[in-house]
């Protein structure tokens, strides 16, 4: 497929700028003391989770089984969405390395692990020396879309990821390899604009590429997908934070993304099903924090909410095996439209103690992936799933917290059947070592 590669020179240009600009700046000043030397900070975040399903409901919300399980390189094959087993779990622990090259670059490597998996969650360089409020990040990182997507478990107010983030973007959120450029405006109100060029191979946009085939009894169906070189996903975001004085702080964000390639296939005994298309998403997020000025977080408030909507525009085809090489098939087109939101609040009801509530809805609009319906195709429509959670957190010392959470799932399944489940989670999270500063 002939293609125009605008992105190559763009990426090369960004990289060159990244490398050249701070180098020029560095020559101007040699810092006194040793704070410009190689400096490696290591921190270890250990988490333990006790999980207990008090009453069993529906394990997966309707309409979201397509991108969620497939195309996920290290599938959490536990029976439900958390990936927690009944009883004790190691949870999600992290080993974090941070180093800087003078004031030119910060390098960050974040390795996440649980009992069975070890994964490089983030590994990136971020510039510190670009002029005019620019910053470039390159490597593997959590996308800065929305609010919670770029935050790690240690910074969350609840044990688990919000449903909308988990089911629209995956078990790890939108975690990708690519380049990010941000610009902070020189204004009184904090204004950050950012754009990301990402490879595009994740739960939000599965990718197969050309060359696949499926055979049975000497008959081979060749995949109809074409290779599409990355970046296949482009995102943009804007964040605003007005100055509200010493007691209040807020940040509002809008973000969106477009993926030019969405490829998925399912192999059957009778043939091959393929979905090929593109996708986009958009969302808004808001965070408000109240600081009471009292010690140990007593009287503080945090409110946070996000809404995301996505559309996947798909061409569907199903081809049957046939030894006479007369291919029977079904084709069709349809658009999946899904969304979700959560809103949560946390209050410091006593020194070092906080309590929070979270309400979530997934699939307020819930048109699923196009599928076969007899000899025709249909875009299935599903109901909305809800979840309500309450938590109490105790922080005995600064880097440690113990959190108890009760979650009621009110999920609907693919057949419109609704049921409630109740889960209890107890989380112990400890940060050891040179634990970095927290973002807002």
């Amino acid at each position, binding site marked *: 497929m002939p293609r125009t590669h605008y992105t190559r020179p763009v990426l090369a240009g960004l990289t060159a700028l990244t490398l050249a600009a701070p180098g020029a700046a560095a020559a101007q000043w040699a810092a006194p003391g040793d704070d410009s030397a190689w400096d490696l900070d290591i921190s270890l975040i250990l988490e333990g989770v006790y999980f207990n399903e008090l009453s069993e409901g529906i394990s997966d919300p309707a309409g979201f089984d397509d991108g969620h399980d497939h195309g996920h390189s290290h599938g959490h094959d536990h029976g439900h969405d958390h990936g927690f087993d009944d009883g004790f779990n190691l949870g999600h622990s992290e080993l974090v390395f941070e180093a800087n090259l003078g004031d030119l670059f910060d390098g960050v490597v974040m390795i996440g692990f649980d009992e069975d998996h070890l994964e490089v969650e983030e590994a990136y360089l971020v510039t510190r020396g670009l002029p005019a409020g620019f910053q470039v990040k390159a490597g593997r990182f959590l996308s800065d879309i929305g609010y919670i997507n770029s935050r790690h478990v240690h910074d969350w107010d609840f044990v688990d990821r919000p449903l909308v983030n988990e089911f629209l973007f995956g078990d790890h959120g939108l975690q990708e390899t690519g380049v990010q450029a941000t610009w902070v405006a020189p204004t009184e109100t904090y204004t950050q604009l950012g754009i990301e060029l990402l490879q595009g191979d994740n739960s939000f946009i599965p990718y197969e590429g050309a060359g696949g085939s499926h055979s049975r009894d000497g008959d081979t169906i060749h995949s109809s997908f074409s290779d599409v070189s990355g970046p296949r996903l482009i995102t943009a975001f804007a964040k605003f934070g007005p100055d509200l004085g010493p007691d209040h702080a807020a940040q509002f964000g809008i973000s969106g993304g477009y993926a030019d390639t969405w490829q998925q296939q399912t192999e059957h005994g009778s043939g091959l099903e393929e979905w090929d298309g593109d996708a986009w998403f958009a969302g808004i997020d808001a965070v408000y924090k109240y600081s009471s000025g009292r010690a140990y977080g007593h009287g503080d408030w945090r409110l946070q909410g996000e809404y995301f909507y996505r559309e996947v525009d798909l061409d569907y085809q199903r081809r049957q095996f046939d030894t006479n090489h007369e291919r029977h098939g079904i084709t069709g087109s349809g658009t999946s439209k899904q969304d979700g939101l959560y809103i949560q609040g946390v209050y410091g009801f006593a*020194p070092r103690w906080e309590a929070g509530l979270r309400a979530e809805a997934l699939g307020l609009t819930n048109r699923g992936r196009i599928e076969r319906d007899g000899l025709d195709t249909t875009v299935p429509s599903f109901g909305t799933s809800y979840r309500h959670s309450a938590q109490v957190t105790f922080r005995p010392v600064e*880097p440690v917290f113990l959190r108890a959470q009760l979650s009621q799932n009110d999920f609907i399944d693919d057949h419109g059947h609704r049921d409630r489940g109740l889960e209890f989670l107890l989380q112990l999270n400890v940060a050891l070592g040179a634990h970095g*500063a*927290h973002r807002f």
Partner: protein
Amino acid sequence: MFPRKTRRHLTRTFAAVVAATLLTLALLPAQAAAGLNIVATTSSLGVLAREIGADQAEVRVLAPPDRDAHYLDARPSFMAALRRADMLLELGAGLEEGWLPAAQRGANNRAINSGQPGHFRGADQVELRRSITMDGPNMGHVHAEGNPHFNSDPLRLAELALALGQRMGELRPEHADTFMERAEHTAERLRAHAEALAEQVAPDQRIVVYHEDLDYLEEWLPVEVVGYLEPAPGIPPTARHLRRLVGDLEGTEGTVLYAEFQPPRGAEFLERNLGWPTHAVPLDPPADAGLDGYLELMSTWAQTLPQR
């Protein structure tokens, strides 16, 4: 079969246009500010910058003076202020480590990066007292470089004023002499006032403080810190710790001092059981204070103690 080439083409064109726009913006000349735009983490540092910079500086203080500067959020408004700053003043030595690095990183401003002349870190300029966190068990609140709360020490602030005057002069050479003159004047006034107050306070005072944030009073007033209300830094007073403190101090005279944002219960317990007077004091002058505001604060600290 799948006619999506056009859309793919458009995505890449869009990416190219956005990148080109960003590059153009990057090449726009930065606004040349007449005065120095200075952001200080605490109001004590703000005082110095205001006194030395006068009309040639615009000073913004991040930490509200009635809050614990250890525990702040890296607010968007902080990042917006740092984005436009020519200079960042911090006490350093871990005091602001919970939030300032994140705010610095989010500000995308090379001028205030660690290691740049626009980044002025107080702890690099003065010798710090040993922090009690260096000897105790590691409870996650360790000041390995020393006690960073030297904003309660006018003598160290005087040293800092001189270093700051010099640094501001390096950034604005045309005002270097004026800055240095004002810095010397500021240092003189701080030292003179400290000396005067030290002579008014009755000798050999003993104080119990909440956190190690008033330890530096020992450096310029005739006082000795004989105990802390916190069992370990960052951990609120426990009944057991307070009883032991009362046991140790039974029959002696002294004063309990704590910051206005710290809970008063521990101090009240000592007042009941030892009969020591207690005082909640500010740790920093008001956010917009000049040197007079800091001198007044020094008097407030000194006047909590018995006078000659």
